[in-house]
């Protein structure tokens, strides 16, 4: 258990490519942080820098009250779960879990007790004598978890641990990892490209884009108040609708649609989530329907608003979908972004 404190940390490769722009943040004891972003945004690099698998170009990294920049990964008191599990193929499940403890000078009895306890927690007891090649993907995932928890590390690192599992297992393991982390109360950093994982698991989410942290916030902050069009369109499924508009004398205009909104004049992007618009005969925005996707509980209506792509997530009430639908945009659900920088206004 420990806090993590990062000051102006950055990573530049020898060829000049900057993988992580200088960033500073603090992680509280027992907190689960999710780093989320598209491929190549630097989230894995950042995690690997914390693990000690990548050099830190500038800045300080503290785990607990130690600066660990120049410590070997084994000295940092961390445990990591890899995307492809990285189990030792020639060792049994029990030995896989015991290896890290053995090298830290734990006694045989201690090791046995820890392994038994972890195996029970993860329902691995009947599999302890098997080799990784004799396990299913989900079981390997559990062993990788077990290998991390037997060590009682100060910090857990997860590098997209669920991306090799099928959808059902992924959901199950997601809940399990979250429960385990709460129960053990260990600080954790979790990397994923899956925004659902990020939303459901995180205490706080760090959204990364092109090596820089775009926004740090709780899942609900990220969802309710995205700091930029990037965050708005990355978090949430389907993503937030973004409409190019012109702000002019207290009005936001898109083609022939105008909404009353206090805003400085200029080009803006108007954002609204697909699930927060509703159909209403009193609505002021005409919607031209082109395609319907059935989701079961709801349906996604694809269409156009003022000539721009727009998606509505409407409850599936079997209402007939006719032409000439009108949408109403609740004022509290509207987000305004600068058209150039994409920053929230």
């Amino acid at each position, binding site marked *: 258990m420990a806090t993590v404190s990062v000051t102006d940390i950055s990573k530049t490769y020898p060829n000049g490519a900057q993988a992580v722009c200088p960033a500073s943040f603090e992680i509280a004891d027992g907190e689960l942080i999710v780093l989320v972003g598209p491929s190549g945004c630097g989230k894995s690099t950042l995690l690997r820098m914390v693990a000690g*698998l990548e050099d830190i170009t500038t800045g300080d990294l503290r785990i607990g009250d130690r600066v660990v920049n120049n410590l070997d990964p*084994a000295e940092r008191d961390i445990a990591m779960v*890899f995307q492809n599990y*990285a189990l*030792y193929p020639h060792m049994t499940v029990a030995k896989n879990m015991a*290896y890290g403890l053995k*090298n830290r000078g734990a006694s045989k009895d201690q090791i046995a007790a820890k392994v038994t306890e972890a195996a029970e927690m993860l329902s691995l007891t009947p599999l302890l004598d098997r080799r990784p090649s004799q396990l299913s993907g989900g079981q390997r995932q559990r062993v990788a978890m077990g290998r991390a928890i037997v060590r009682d590390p100060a910090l857990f690192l997860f590098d997209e641990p669920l991306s090799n599992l099928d959808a059902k297992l992924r959901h199950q393991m997601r809940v399990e990892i979250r429960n385990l982390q709460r129960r053990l109360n260990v600080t954790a950093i979790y990397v994923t490209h899956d925004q659902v994982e990020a939303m459901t698991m995180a205490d706080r989410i760090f959204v990364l884009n092109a090596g820089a942290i775009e926004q740090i916030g709780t899942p609900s902050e990220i969802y309710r108040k995205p700091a930029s069009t990037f965050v708005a369109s990355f978090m949430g499924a389907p993503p937030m609708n973004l409409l190019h508009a012109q702000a002019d004398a207290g009005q936001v205009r898109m083609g022939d649609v105008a909404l009353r909104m206090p805003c400085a004049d200029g080009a803006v992007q108007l954002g609204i989530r697909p699930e927060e618009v509703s159909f209403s005969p009193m609505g002021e925005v005409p919607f031209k329907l082109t395609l319907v996707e059935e989701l079961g509980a709801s349906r996604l209506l694809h269409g156009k608003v003022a000539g721009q792509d727009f998606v509505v997530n409407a409850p599936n009430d079997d209402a007939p979908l006719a032409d000439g639908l009108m949408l109403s945009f609740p004022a509290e659900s509207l987000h305004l972004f600068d058209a150039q920088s994409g920053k929230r206004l």
Partner: protein
Amino acid sequence: MKRAAFSQPLMPVALLMPQLIIIAVFFYWPAWEAVYSSFFLQDPFGFGASYVGADNYTRLARSTEYGKVAGFTLFFTLVVTFLSLGIALLLAVKADKVIRGAKTYRTLLMWVYAVAPPVAGFLGSLLFNQNIGPITDLFAFFGYDLQIGLNYNDTAFAMITVSVWKQIPVNFIFLLSGLQSIPVSVREAALIDNQSGVRRFWDITFPLLAPTAFFLLIINITYALFDTFGIIDIMVKGNPASNPITLVYKVYTDGFRGNDLGGSSAQSVVLMVLVLLLTIMQFRMLERRIHYT
């Protein structure tokens, strides 16, 4: 596997024929000839042969000279295998860690592999040449007179050195590719689990390298037993009398110098049995024991 159907029953046989003929002519026929003639005593001038039963074998078993050569062969094989594998492993591990200029470095190390075996043997013999060999000069500098082809131990030393030198690149290539096929994330997991690089190597890297290493072990034993013929021939300069030789070389000298075809055949049969045992061991171990995935 898909079963192919041939309308002509002789077609598959005809298709296999070229391969079968090659195997029969170049492998089974000579092997049979060796077994057959090992039970005969040949006239040195080729006028006839008389059946002597197992005499050639019992003579071998009683011969102190054969025992001595077998002893040296064992020593030679063990030392050459150990050194060529050990040095190649060290080089491969170090080359694997090189980050800057890795490709150039590896290419340079592998170049030696492109040197043809007779050329390598010749180069080796030049290095140990009595008059101009730099290694001979080096020993002379320290006051030791290296006499290849005259002194038993000196010749053995030169034979081993050249044989090891010649085999290192082959082992290096295999071991390096074996090292690089170990998943990066497994090594990184080990990095987090164990601080000591040496222990990580023996606990994680080496066991994962074991399939490659075992394959190379067999290859190297075979190499030291059989393929070092050319090197030995150059070193002993056709004068095996007081020099160390291996079993294969003895087959050649007894058969073609001593004209004892029967005894030489019996020796080849012994070697054939040895190869057979090695092959069985390789299949047993490689197929069953050392694979993980």
